[in-house]
């Protein structure tokens, strides 16, 4: 067994075909660099700025960008927009990534079980997926966020609850086609348990599409958090998030347009980056999926 499993030629991960194609996909690289810079800024930035994100200064309300050391201006309470933007970035990126992890794990579990078992269990699981997909996600998320207590953790759960279906569909289709392959028959003949076959033998072969879907899910989760926080049902102030910084910005659109423009630009930047990365990964991992 061990002799057969010996690697053909030891290559470093960055020398592999996948990595080469990823790097050659310049947009993906741009996305990766942008998101790294953004994450670094959000992690390190707040301690470098002279203002705290919660510091209220009523004498400095509505200061436009580049007023003194308020590089991005101040909000209606005189809080520094730059400090709030970076703190909000921590929350928004964290919510996006955690919601992606949760929905990917849940979707993968459902997909693997439905695809491998098939039959009644598979049918029930996949019809449930169809059922969840029939609800426009923001309607569902808003209804849940309005009824439940909108703590950041709960927002993550709620977003994951409306984003797990796509992964489930992708994994189910992949597992269904993989389970008739020789290596699966061989594992079954060796007497391995179903759980072992599902998660140790089949799942690693379906990782490509899962990774691509996951990177695109981060983008959508960040957008969804922004939508519900903008509408006032997401992350609650004084905790800042990119979405809730825009909540209320509409009424000051004429006098303080930077309040609307800056957080929106941050959201667009982050979401674009994840979309670029997802697209690059799709090319690199040779996944043919939907084009969205």
């Amino acid at each position, binding site marked *: 067994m061990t002799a057969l499993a010996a690697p053909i030629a030891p290559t470093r991960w960055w020398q592999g075909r996948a990595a080469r194609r990823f790097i050659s996909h310049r*947009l993906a690289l741009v996305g990766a660099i942008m998101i790294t810079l953004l994450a670094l800024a959000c992690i390190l930035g707040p301690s470098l700025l002279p203002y705290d994100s919660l510091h209220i200064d009523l004498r400095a309300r509505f200061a436009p960008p580049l007023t003194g050391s308020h590089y991005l201006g101040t909000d209606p309470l005189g809080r520094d927009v730059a400090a709030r933007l970076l703190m909000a970035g921590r929350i928004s990126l964290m919510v996006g990534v955690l919601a992606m992890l949760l929905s990917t794990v849940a979707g993968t579990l459902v997909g693997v079980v439905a695809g491998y078992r098939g039959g009644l269990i598979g049918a029930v699981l996949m*019809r*449930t997926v*169809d*059922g*969840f*997909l*029939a*609800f*426009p*996600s*923001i*309607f*569902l998320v*808003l*209804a*849940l966020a*309005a*009824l*439940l207590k909108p703590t950041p953790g709960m927002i993550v759960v709620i977003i994951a609850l409306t984003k797990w279906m796509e992964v489930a569909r992708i994994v189910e289709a992949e597992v269904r086609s993989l389970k008739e392959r020789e290596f699966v028959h061989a594992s079954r003949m060796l007497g391995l348990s179903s759980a072992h076959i599902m998660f140790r033998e089949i799942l690693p072969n379906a990782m490509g599409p899962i990774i691509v879907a996951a990177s695109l899910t981060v*983008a959508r989760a960040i*957008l969804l958090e*922004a*939508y519900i926080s*903008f*509408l006032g*049902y997401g992350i609650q102030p004084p905790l800042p998030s990119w*979405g809730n910084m*825009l909540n209320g*910005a*509409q009424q000051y*659109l*004429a006098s303080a*347009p930077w309040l*609307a*423009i800056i957080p*929106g630009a941050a*959201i*667009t930047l982050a*979401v*674009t980056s994840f*979309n*670029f990365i997802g*697209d690059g990964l799709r090319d690199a991992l040779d996944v043919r999926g939907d*084009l*969205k």
Partner: protein
Amino acid sequence: MHRFLLGRLVQSLVLLVIVSVIGYVILSLIPGGPLSQFGLDPGLTADDIARLKEQMGLNQPVWVRYLDWAWKLVHGDWGVSLRDGTPVLTVIARHLVATLLLMGSSTVIAIAAGTWIGIRSATHRYSLFDYAATIGAMIALSIPTFWFGLVGIYVFSLKLGWLPAGNMYSIGDGSVLDYLHHLILPSLVLSLVHVAVWSRYMRAAMLDSINQDFVKTARAKGVAERRILMKHVVGNALLPMITLAGVQLPSILTGALVTETVFTWPGMGRLFYDSLGYSDYPVVMGILMFSAIVVILGNLIADVVVALVDPRIRLA
């Protein structure tokens, strides 16, 4: 064909039942629930709450309550709005026209622009236009609709003063022209994402059919290039687009909620948002169910149309 239709119909009905279960479970099992509206009233004693529970049938098992609710739903009794006692279906009907107007016009824009961009991208593959369309589409998919709306209001209403910043018509006016004037900005904003999706799918579908044998045959016969493109390639590429139109319904409704909120457009999305603010659960539930039904119907209609147009499915 009949078997196909019957099969799809049964599938849709099953899905409808599943959707109703999901909707009911989510909204009825949540802490608080229908009684939360009375929770803030200090004049209510525990006895009153118990009596209310009895009256509303809340002490019965969940499945009995679900069947009761579903039975009423099928018979058109969707409950009444807690705000003013109007039947939920009437409230929805009142807001439906505004949403249809907005969704309809933005869908027309999206299909027209998306199809054109998709065709041009495919025929001029790897050209500057193609790259610009690819990157543009990805950025368009990343812009939050509400932010695009706010920027649109800032530029076109506040700075240039060309277009109104919200509402469906001006008070005291109400001419067709006035409606159109108010429609331009929200429908353009709502269509942005969909132009992006449509153009990407159209490009892929075009590239799929450009390399088909029947295109080579037509070319070998000496058919004019333009005729090949319009008749053979575009014609076939439009087929998957019909399915896409059905699949896109949920996201159009989603976009409509955000767009309607930003532009104070009196449609279903705005109604949903306002009803949440008033804890008007019957209306919230009604809109959730209504939109899910619309989505299922949309997918069903798209499948049927594809079957009617595509002989490969019809004759199978």
